[in-house]
């Protein structure tokens, strides 16, 4: 099968521009009449290792040296496993363990690889071989026989004739996977409605604002001008279940601005306290925490997709892919001076969803 190079001369006439084996339509391809002929294979060029016996011996030496080196690498990796154990509470030992086992394995692998490739390139018989191609389609006899088989199967089973059997089978085959699809309803809890769940949070009238993550309630007097606090509802840390789910909706940013810098909507006049405002921390784009507060410009920036919200203008969007302002949490101060929520958010927080209106 593998022939010597120059035997390809007889292929010179064959055109390489893609004229099909069995005269398949060439479409808009231009068939060039006076195309230059394929010159056949160029003469074989021997390698240094073919001409110079000392080069050949050198290549051989290189290859087996590499393979022996690989064994050294494997042994080194095992030794490193033992010589560089992980010492509890010492991150440096992890680094050494990782480094030396890894370098040992690298040597073991690379040496095999380079050795084998070098062997293949420098020492193995390097005359190229030729395989003939045949059209991918089956031969005409094969195809005729295949058609016959289907026809025989068709007539022997009567699938074309007995249409009731055929159609009912198709129906049954379509119907039988449907229960499996229905089973996937069980992926979510049974009796909840997601849209309803998304529409309320843990905040309710009188819930104290607490620091994230300690859960310490916050006094209005602790909020200095220009500061920003990450806030959770008091009691969140004591939840047995669903702490992250509740936090994902209830997280709030608390900021204090000069009251004259706040441009409040008339219907929200009573939602702030002495320049202190509370806004949902969950971005209205796809739900990342809007964690970056620029004190000077009163802008909030979402680090994920760079939506920017203007706190002095009820957190409306001034740049980025988000559309809706961050929902505002109405706040007040209780008799002991702690900040409390007046109610839950008045709209769903976080990313938009279909049922939201």
């Amino acid at each position, binding site marked *: 099968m593998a022939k010597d190079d120059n035997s390809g001369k007889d292929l010179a006439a064959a055109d390489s521009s*893609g004229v099909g084996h069995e005269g398949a339509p060439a479409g808009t391809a231009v068939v060039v009449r006076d195309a230059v002929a394929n010159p056949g294979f160029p003469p074989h060029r021997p390698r240094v290792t073919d001409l110079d016996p000392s080069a050949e011996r050198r290549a051989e030496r290189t290859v087996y040296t590499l393979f022996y080196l690989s064994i050294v690498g494997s042994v080194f990796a095992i030794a490193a496993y033992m010589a560089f154990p992980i010492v509890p509470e010492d991150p440096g030992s992890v680094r050494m363990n*990782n480094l030396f086992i890894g370098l040992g394995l690298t040597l073991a692998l690379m040496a095999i*690889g380079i050795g084998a490739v070098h062997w293949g390139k420098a020492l193995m018989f390097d005359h190229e071989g030729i395989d003939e*191609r045949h059209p991918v389609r089956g031969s005409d006899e094969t195809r005729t026989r295949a058609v016959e088989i289907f026809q025989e199967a068709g007539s022997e089973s009567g699938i074309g004739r007995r249409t009731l059997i055929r159609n009912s089978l198709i129906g049954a085959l379509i119907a039988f996977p449907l229960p499996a699809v229905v089973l996937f309803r069980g992926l979510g809890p049974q009796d909840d409605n997601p849209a309803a769940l998304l529409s309320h949070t843990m905040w309710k009238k009188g819930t104290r604002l607490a620091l994230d993550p300690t859960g310490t309630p916050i006094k209005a007097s602790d909020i200095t001008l220009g500061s920003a606090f990450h806030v959770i509802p008091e009691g969140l840390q004591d939840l047995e279940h669903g702490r992250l789910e509740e936090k994902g909706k209830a997280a709030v940013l608390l900021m204090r601005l000069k009251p004259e810098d706040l441009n409040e909507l008339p219907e929200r006049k009573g939602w702030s306290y002495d320049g202190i405002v509370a806004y949902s921390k969950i971005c209205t784009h796809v739900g990342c925490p809007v964690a970056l507060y620029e004190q000077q410009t009163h802008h909030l920036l979402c680090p994920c997709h760079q939506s920017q919200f203007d706190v002095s203008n009820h957190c409306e969007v001034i740049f980025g*892919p988000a559309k809706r302002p961050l929902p505002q949490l109405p706040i007040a101060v209780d008799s002991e001076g702690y900040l409390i929520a007046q109610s839950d958010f008045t709209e769903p927080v976080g990313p938009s969803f279909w049922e939201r209106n």
Partner: protein
Amino acid sequence: MSTTTTTTELVETKKSGGLTAVAANYIDERTSISTAVKELGRKIFPDHWSFLLGEVALYSFVIILLSGSFLTFFFSASMAPVQYDGSYVPLKGVEMSAAMSSSLDISFDIRGGLLMRQVHHWAALLFVAAIGLHMLRIYFTGAFRKPRELNWVIGFILFILAMAEGFTGYSLPDDLLSGNGLRIIDGMVKGIPLVGTWISYLLFGGEFPGEAIVGRLYSLHILLLPAIIVALIAMHLLFVVVHKHTQYPGAGRTNQNVVGYPVLPVYAAKAGGFFFIVFGVVMLMASLFTINPIWNYGPYDPSPVSAGTQPDWYIGFADGALRLIPPGLEFVWLDHTFSVNILIPLVSLGLFILVVLIYPFIEAWVTGDKREHHILDRPRNAPTRTAIGAAGVTFYAALWTTASSDIIATHFSVTMEGVIHTMQFLTIVGPFIAFFIAKRVCLALQKKDREIVLHGYESGRIVRLPGGEYIEVHQPIDEYERWKLVSYSDYKPLMIRPNAQGKITTGQKVRAGMSRWFFEDRIEPVGNAELEQAHTDRH
């Protein structure tokens, strides 16, 4: 027919005797393995560096399977809250999921565990990159043409599955970054009209983040997706055997032969050795370079996030698409929210992917060429295809760059808004510019090829003629080099002709328009007559 083969093999092997012969005989009598050896053992594979890209993809997948299997023995795919009590001091006593805790244990309490985690992650990054480059190689050389269109589709699905594997794996440790990634997916899914809210609800087993998602992604990551990938890779390679490998144009190579080295021994040595080299490079990266240091991020919590975080590289284009959307694209209509700011990225990326998927069929329809093509195109010889590819690459690159918009803004001290506006411009206009430039460059290179064929190459030797004129001597190229420059398929635009009913259909008009767009600017390959003419002129 196999009986004769087996008997001859038998006679031969018996003669030589020894343990190998006995073993070979034993196996062959039970498996007919000699048939496979006869068919495949001396099968020819052509050589070219660009053919290695697919091999890199295959080998990194093997590395992923090996290192991933190791990781499954230690990883706990549970979101049940636990108190971390491992060796990493800064997180001691912190409450986190069992998934995060076990990932930290793999990194800090199991010897070689961090190494395997890093091998797994680096190999995964390499896997997607190698598939991407392999696809570009296939595209720009026209290797997707008949009979390989379906294998392009299989390979393309593998690319999508590789990204899915990457994303599901990235999410498993349940650290702060991966949790934020899931949060973004949740937000995007919720933006899908009608079903989005429910899909998110079912995916997370209730409200985000829930306690189910890691276990579910784990099933996908180690069972379902790998099974499909293994099956598709098997099909992909089977087709390579059926079609035989393509080859670049070269003297002696035709559409009816394959020229190269046989599987045994040369190809086995080189490809087998190359597996170890790829493995070695991944191992070296894993030894020296940290990847995904989850201990720095901490466990997932919906409230904190750090600035300047980046997804793994292959998800960047989707994240970039989200960032590019201008403000205000969302509205409420008929009591329902239409998140256009989410739908535009989803739909445009979907369309982009669809065009890539069906490109072989589009080009086949435009050319109407039903012949088999086993000789690769040099990219310059298909200028419009190459230009379309350049436009696609530019579009992808613009989206991908946008995923780092915040980093660009902070590193180069430019405004966030300026970066986004520039990238919006580049995403839309960039592909057109790239198309134009690539097409002109291709045509110019084709002209240069013609020039070299007809008048030889510039030898760098300057000669002063008796009249005082200086000329550079041009040397003619040999016939083997010349063949590479003149042997390519050339297409001309389609002429519209009325069909049997004397009508010109809309389909025909569209096809003719596309064909004109593809082949209006064409450089014909040099023929014998021209060559003769140039030859006479020279003397």
